[in-house]
């Protein structure tokens, strides 16, 4: 049987405001538990929420970024359920009148194929607190610092049909929200969380199959694995003649397994009703236009600019333009080095590999853009070879000073003095007279391989500091004399 997968995503994006959506409490991450929970966040009787203008603006910015309709009138509702990290007994959210209406996000896949993913809507809501299940001897600990942190929930249409598409879509959203500066993008801190709705149906079937929802995935890798796992499970169940139950599932990254959490309560169970504490939210056309004017460069525009302005390949432009911090770093290196191609190679190559290996973001790179730019300048003016440049980068990475300091202190300057190099080459040929004679006797094809031996010896003799072009030229001349 041929099966077809249908995937839709619900994405929670924490907005990077200073304060919570309905109170003046700080949203700073890492504070002592419960030190940033005000009477409003605690749901104390007699308090009234007041909406944060920045949260509204950031939601609108997202809407503008995906070409969505911005609803001039939106309203908050109460979603009622009981859980200890939700002290009010309801989540203040939007349902009937979300602030952001339908929009489109374009994704690009590895083979270059493009696809439009429709966004059903995006709404404003508050985050819940955190339940901690370890170290409280059989009890759960509740930290309400996160309660009331502003979120937008982005709901896609079920337009995705593979885990690759789902991940490309998730990455694109990450790129958009960080580029327009509404979210810090720290996935490991839960700044973006993905709920994945998956169903399968026989190929050609119109009707959607029963879907399950796998909740709270906070990495692209986990998302890909969770989808693969769920698709396989559903197909197994159906091929064995079973039926899929609509349920919420929890993915465990450590064991690469998932299990049913609870059967999804039907929407009525949340007993939504308009929140009587909050008035309808009105935004004027002028406010929307002011935000449109302030909308930062979007990833797609930046990618096109990088290709145009720096003559980068589509692949390099993708890597560099997708992440705002990466893009800023790259442009700072270009400013310093005045060579976009080399800057792109070093940022996506040597530097990216080091960051990856150390699990670091580019914002936390031990080598500043200025330093990397300086290394490239020294490479271009022939002070150092590219092999030595890697050594300099390593030293800068280890905090041994600026590139020029490192080159000076370690004596890494390339030897370009032809007199001195000539002496070294003469000595080398004298010391290896047999090999030199063999080279002269050999035919063109064999010579190529043998030539490498002499280059190696020359580099060894100069600790890699010889200018490679000069060495090549000298060796060629001397060996054929």
């Amino acid at each position, binding site marked *: 049987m041929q099966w077809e997968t249908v995937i839709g995503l619900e994405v929670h994006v924490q907005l990077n405001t*200073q*304060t919570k959506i309905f109170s003046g*409490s*700080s949203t700073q991450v890492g504070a002592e538990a419960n030190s940033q*929970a005000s009477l409003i966040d605690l749901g104390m009787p007699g308090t009234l929420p007041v909406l944060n*203008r920045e949260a509204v603006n950031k939601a609108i910015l997202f809407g503008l970024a995906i070409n969505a309709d911005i609803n001039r009138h939106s309203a908050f509702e109460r979603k009622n359920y009981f859980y*200890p990290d939700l002290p009010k007994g309801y989540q203040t959210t939007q349902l009937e009148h979300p602030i952001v209406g339908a929009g489109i996000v374009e994704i690009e896949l590895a083979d270059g194929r493009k696809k439009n993913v429709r966004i059903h809507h995006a709404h404003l809501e508050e985050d819940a607190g955190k339940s901690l*299940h370890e170290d409280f001897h059989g009890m759960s600990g509740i930290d309400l610092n996160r309660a009331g942190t502003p979120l937008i929930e982005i709901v896609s249409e079920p337009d995705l049909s593979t885990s690759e598409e789902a991940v490309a879509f998730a990455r694109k959203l990450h790129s958009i929200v960080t580029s327009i500066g509404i979210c810090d993008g720290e996935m490991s801190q839960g700044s973006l969380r993905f709920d994945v709705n998956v169903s399968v149906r026989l190929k050609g079937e119109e009707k959607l199959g029963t879907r399950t929802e796998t909740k709270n995935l906070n990495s692209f890798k986990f998302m890909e694995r969770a989808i693969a796992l769920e698709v396989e499970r559903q197909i197994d169940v159906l091929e064995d003649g079973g039926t899929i139950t609509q349920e919420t599932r929890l993915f465990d990254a450590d064991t690469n397994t998932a299990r049913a959490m609870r059967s999804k309560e039907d929407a009525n169970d949340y007993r939504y009703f308009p929140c009587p504490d909050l*008035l309808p*939210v009105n935004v004027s056309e002028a406010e929307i236009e002011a935000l449109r004017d302030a909308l930062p460069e979007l990833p797609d525009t930046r990618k096109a600019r990088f290709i145009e302005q720096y003559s980068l390949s589509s692949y390099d432009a993708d890597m560099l333009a997708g992440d705002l911090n990466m893009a800023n770093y790259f442009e700072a290196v270009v400013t310093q080095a005045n060579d976009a191609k080399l800057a792109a190679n070093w940022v996506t190559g040597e530097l990216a590999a080091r960051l990856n290996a150390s699990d670091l973001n580019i914002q936390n790179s031990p080598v500043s853009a200025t330093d990397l730019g300086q290394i490239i300048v020294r490479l271009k003016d022939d002070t150092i070879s590219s092999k030595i440049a890697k050594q300099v980068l390593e030293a800068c990475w280890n905090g041994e000073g600026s590139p020029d300091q490192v080159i000076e202190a370690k004596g890494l300057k390339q030897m370009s003095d032809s007199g001195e190099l000539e002496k070294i080459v003469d000595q080398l040929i004298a010391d290896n007279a047999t090999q030199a004679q063999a080279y002269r006797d050999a035919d063109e094809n064999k010579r190529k391989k043998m030539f490498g031996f002499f280059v190696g010896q020359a580099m060894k003799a100069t600790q890699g500091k010889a200018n490679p072009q000069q060495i090549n030229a000298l060796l060629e001349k001397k060996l054929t004399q």
Partner: protein
Amino acid sequence: MAINQDTILRVAHLARLQVSEQDCEETTSRLNDILSMVDQLQQADVGDIAPMAHPLDVHQPLRQDIITETDIRAEVMPIAPAQEDNCYLVPRVIE
């Protein structure tokens, strides 16, 4: 539209309200009285009227994004029945 005692008990459970068996009958009948009044309201023709989010023509004032709250943990935490390591303690909630 009329509701029965099962619905009352279900809604009571969702709202974590205790409704005893003897109260259930009376509650059901009183809520059905209210619902029959709603039925009457439903007969009004409101086809041309947009649903109203608020009875007054007012809208939500917005707050500047500035920290105004301070740490009140020392005052509020002792109200809770159990606490440890700056956290409120509750019966274990995960299965």
